[in-house]
């Protein structure tokens, strides 16, 4: 477990350093994710050592969003009188975005499937 946490935090730390150092538009943890993929490609056996702890973390991913979620309700005042309009926009825009992504994904898969033997 400590190996896993050390490696995850180490990747995040290097990601943060790179993001801030080079002024990249990606957050540190996302660069850390890319770095860990790179490490896996060099040392594929490492994945099995990381698997137990990583599985526990990812199985409880929702839990990690609870503090931020509580903050949202606490700051409902920020939304002021626009709250109904904002909720409607968020709902519509999120549904539109999912429709666009899923439509493109399925469409492109179908179109390219013919070219793959």
């Amino acid at each position, binding site marked *: 477990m400590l190996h896993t946490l050390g490696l*995850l*935090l180490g*990747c*995040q730390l290097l*990601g943060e350093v790179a993001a801030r150092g080079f002024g990249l*538009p*990606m*957050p*540190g*943890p*996302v660069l*850390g*994710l*890319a770095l*860990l*993929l790179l490490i*896996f490609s060099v040392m594929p056996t490492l*994945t099995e050592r*990381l*698997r137990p702890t*990583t599985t526990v*973390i*990812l199985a*409880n*991913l*929702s*839990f*990690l*969003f*609870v*503090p*931020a*979620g*509580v*903050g*949202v309700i*606490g*700051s409902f005042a*920020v939304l002021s009188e626009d709250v109904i*309009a*904002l909720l409607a*926009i*968020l709902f*519509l*825009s*999120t*549904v*539109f*975005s*999912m*429709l*666009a*992504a*899923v439509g*493109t*994904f*399925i469409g*492109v*898969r179908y179109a*390219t499937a013919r070219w793959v033997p």
Partner: protein
Amino acid sequence: MTEVTSLWSYLATSPLIWLTATIFAYLVADGVARHLGNPPWANPVLLSVLLIIPVLWLTQTDYTAYFEGAQFIHFLLGPATVALALPLWDNRDTIRTSVAPIVLALLTGSIVAAGSAIILARAFGLPTEVLLSLAPKSTTAPVALGISEAIGGIPALTAVLVIMTGIIGAVTVTPLMNLLRITDWRARGFAVGVAAHGIGTARAFQVNPVAGAYASIAMALNALLTSLIVPLLVRWLV
């Protein structure tokens, strides 16, 4: 009475109580959701929040005090994001065969997420500041806050909108995809990852591991793309 008061004043200033409360609230919320068979509306994040908020009100605890304890959980979002490398690695073979759908669905999903928010905000006549805060709502919080600040939005408002988008995406994805009879877990996961970042990704993992892996890719790539696309869309549409 004074003993109770001093006990409370100790607890109120210690991170222990709110850390513990958050864990138990989640255990209850997740237990209820599982018991019901994880229906989309019983989102564990939303249920936990609904359990914690009344307690904060009753004890007159402000968010800063709550966060003293909850920050330890919040902090783990960083390493958890790095940990998404494992499901991506596990699915590398299928991912390699779907590069074209991934790239193009990322483009359309990301552009529609930001573009439709801007257009709708204008249609509803919202103030420009609010509109700018809304534009990066579909990407992960740290990126969204940075973009919001850079284009002249209100980062605090963006933080709220990002979390609400995540919950809306997590709650709507299953009924929407079932309605459209989409059975491809890759496409379903990818869509919710683009539109609803980490909270959507958490929902995808709850439903299917392949959907979770594709949601992770979408979330990670969208973190990059949104920061490039939103400033451009704002220039064209605002």
